[in-house]
C-alpha cells in the first residue's frame, strides 16, 4: 500500500509525538468530566464551553499585556468560582434526578455560555501568542512546538497535584467517599452538598487550565466547545470513571489514533474514525459485560 507515513519513518515519530502531546491535554479535560460524572452522576455537555471560557480568560490577560501562560494559574481560580456558582444555580437542582434531565440542563448551560462568550468576546477566531519557539529533533525533520510541550507538562503537573490532593486532603477523601456511596457518606457526616459544589468547581478549574493551554496551542472561538466535550466523553467511556491512569492512557491513545487515522484514512475521516472507534468500543464493552454477567447499577 502506498501510504506516505510508512515511507517516511520520521513522519511516524512526528505523528506519534503530536498525538501524545495533544492527547495529554484532552486527558486533563476528560479527567474533570470523569470526576464529576463519578461523584455526581452528571454528564456535563457544557464541559467544552467551560474549556473555551477558560481560554478566553487567558486571552483577556494576553490582551492586557500579561503573558497568556499565567492563565494556567489565574484561569482555574476564576473558573472554580464559575463552576461553584453554576452548581448553586442550576446543577444542585438536577443532581439527584434522571441522567436525561442533567444532560438537558447542561446542554442549556452550554448554549447560554456560547451566546454569552459571543456577546462579550465577539465571534472572531482568536489566538494568544506564547512566543515559546520550537524544539527540533532529528536534524529538523521532527518539529515540536514548545507551547505543546509546555501544555502537556502543565497538564501532567496539575493531574499529579490533583491525585495527591484527592488522596491526602480531607475534601479529597470526602469526594471519594461521596463517589462510592453518597448516602453512606451523608450518614457518616459528610456534607455532600458542599462536596458536590467543590467537585463541580474543581472540574471547571481543570477546564480553565485546559482552556488557557488551548489559547496558546490552538484557536479560540465561542462555538468550538462541543468537540472538546465529545472527545472527553469518549475518553471517559473508554477509561471508566475515577481512574486517572486509565484516563491518561486513553487520552494519549485517542490522540495517537486520530493522528494515524489522518495519515492512513485521510484528514476528512479523522473525526469519523474517532466516532467509529467509539461505537466499536461501546459494542465491545457490552459484549464483554454480557459474558461476565456482572451486575451493573
Amino acid at each position, binding site marked *: 500500500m502506498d501510504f506516505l507515513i510508512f515511507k517516511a519513518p520520521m*513522519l511516524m515519530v512526528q505523528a506519534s509525538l503530536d498525538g501524545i502531546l495533544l492527547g495529554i491535554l484532552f486527558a486533563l479535560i476528560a479527567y474533570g468530566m470523569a470526576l464529576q460524572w463519578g461523584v455526581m452522576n452528571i454528564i456535563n455537555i457544557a464541559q467544552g464551553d467551560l474549556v473555551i471560557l477558560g481560554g478566553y480568560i487567558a486571552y483577556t490577560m494576553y490582551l492586557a499585556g500579561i503573558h497568556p501562560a499565567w492563565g494556567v494559574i489565574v484561569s482555574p481560580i476564576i473558573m472554580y468560582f464559575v463552576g461553584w456558582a453554576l452548581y448553586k444555580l442550576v446543577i444542585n437542582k438536577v443532581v439527584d434526578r434522571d441522567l436525561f434531565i442533567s444532560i438537558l440542563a447542561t446542554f442549556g448551560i452550554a448554549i447560554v455560555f456560547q*451566546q454569552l462568550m459571543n456577546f462579550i468576546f465577539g465571534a472572531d477566531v482568536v*489566538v494568544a501568542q506564547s512566543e515559546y519557539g*520550537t524544539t*527540533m529533533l532529528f536534524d529538523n525533520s521532527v518539529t515540536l512546538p514548545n507551547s505543546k510541550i509546555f501544555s502537556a507538562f502543565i497538564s501532567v503537573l496539575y493531574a499529579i497535584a490533583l491525585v495527591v490532593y484527592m488522596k491526602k486532603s480531607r475534601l479529597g477523601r470526602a469526594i471519594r467517599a461521596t463517589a462510592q456511596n453518597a448516602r453512606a457518606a451523608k450518614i457518616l457526616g459528610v456534607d455532600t452538598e458542599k462536596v458536590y459544589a467543590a467537585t463541580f468547581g474543581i472540574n471547571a478549574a481543570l477546564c480553565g487550565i485546559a482552556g488557557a493551554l488551548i489559547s496558546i496551542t*490552538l484557536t479560540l472561538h465561542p462555538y468550538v466547545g*462541543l468537540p472538546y466535550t465529545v472527545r472527553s466523553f469518549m475518553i471517559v467511556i473508554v477509561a471508566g470513571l475515577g481512574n486517572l491512569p486509565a484516563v491518561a492512557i486513553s487520552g494519549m491513545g485517542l490522540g495517537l489514533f486520530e493522528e494515524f487515522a489522518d495519515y492512513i484514512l485521510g484528514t*476528512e475521516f479523522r*473525526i469519523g474514525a474517532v466516532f467509529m472507534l467509539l461505537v466499536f468500543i461501546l459494542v465491545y464493552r457490552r459484549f464483554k459485560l454480557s459474558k461476565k454477567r456482572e451486575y451493573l447499577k
Partner: protein
Amino acid sequence: MNKLVKLFTIFISAISLTLASISSSFAKVEGEYIVLGSAISLTGKYSSNGVHTQNGYNMAVERINKMGGVNVGGKSYKFEIIYYDDESNPKRAAQLAERLIKQDGVHYMLGPYSSGLTKAIAPVTEKYKIPMVEANGASRSLFTKGYKYLFAVLSPANQYLEVAIDLAVEKNGGKPVRIAQAFEQDAFSQDVRLGILDAAKRTGSEIIIDDKLPKELNDMAATLAKVKATKPDVLVVSGHTKGALTAIRQIAEMKVDVPMLAMTHCDAAKLSKQHGKKSEYALCASQWHKNLSYKDKFFGSGKKYDKDFKKEFGYAPPYQSAESSAALLVFKDAFERANSFDRDKVRDALKTTEMQTFYGNIKFGPGGQNTAKPMILFQVRCKGDVCENKVVAPTKWASDKFYHPIPKWSERS
C-alpha cells in the same frame, strides 16, 4: 358588557387589519423612501462579518441619501433598510426573508452574510420574484441554479485562488508545479478547491496532497507534517478565519518551509495583527483592496472609502463592507435606469447593469455572478513589527513586487 367587549375586539381587529393591508401595499415605496429588506447575522457565529456587512449597507444608504437619493420618474427617493437578525442560522434566515416579503411587504432585498445563508434565502426571493442584490455569497452553486432574481456584486468562490496557481507556474518558469492543498468541508471552501483543480488541469500541475479539513478541526499538524515531507511548490489553505489562523500558527511553530503559501480570509482573520511577523509572505485572496484604482462619484476612490469608513465606524473596512456598499450603488443605478418601481422592470435593469464603482466594475453574467471584476491577491509584508497587506497581483494594481520564494524559517528572524 360582554357584547361591548366583543364589539371592541372586532373594532380593534378591523382597524389593525386595515392598517396592515395599507402598510404592506405601500411598503415597497413609503412616501419618499424605497424600502429594502435584509436578514443579517447580528448574533451567532457570523456576527462580526454580519456587522461588517451591515455597516457597509448603512454607509452607502447614508451617502446616497445625502447626495440626492434615487431619481425615479422625476422624483427623488431615499433608501431605507429593514434589518432582522438571522442569528447566523440558515433556517431562521429563510423565515425572516418570508417575513420581510409577506408581512413587511418588502419588494427588494439585500443579501445576508455568507454563502450558506444566501443559499437559504435565494429560493424564497426567487419564489416571490423579489430582486436580491447580494454582496457576501460567493459559492459557485448559487450561480448554477438558474436563479433569475439573484445578483452578486462579488467574484464567485472558484476564482479566489486560481490566480495564485498561475502565479506559481509563472514563478516556476512556466513549468507545472506541485500543489499541496487543505480545504475545509463547506460549500465555499470546496468551491475554492474546484477553482484550484481547474487551474491545476489547465497548467498541467500535480496535486500531491489534497486534505479535506473537518469543520471542527483546529489542528492541522498532520497536514503540515505531510507538506514538510513532500516539499510542494505551493501550499493552498482555505478554511475561513479559523483555517487561516490555525495554518499560520502551526506553519510557524512547525517551521514548515514552503516557497509559496496561498490562503483565503486573511483579512477577516486579522492575520497580520494576530500573528504579526509569523504571517509574513502569506498570499491572500481578496475581493477588494483600498489601493485599487476604481472610482465612482459617491465614494470617490477606494482610499477615500477607507478613510470615510474609518471615520464613521472606527476601524478599517474589510472587503465585506466594501462589497456591501457596492450592492446599494447597483440598486440605485438599476432603479434609475428602470425608472419604475415595478419589480420585473427593476430586475431587467439589474440584469443589464454595467458600471464602475469604487469597489470594482460590475456586470452580471447569466447566473447572476459579477463577471467584470477580477480577484486580487495581496501579500503580507512586514517592516519591523508592523505588517501590512500589499497588492501583488494582478499586475495592473500591484503596489509591490510579489516576494518569491518565501525565505526558509532558519533564515527568518
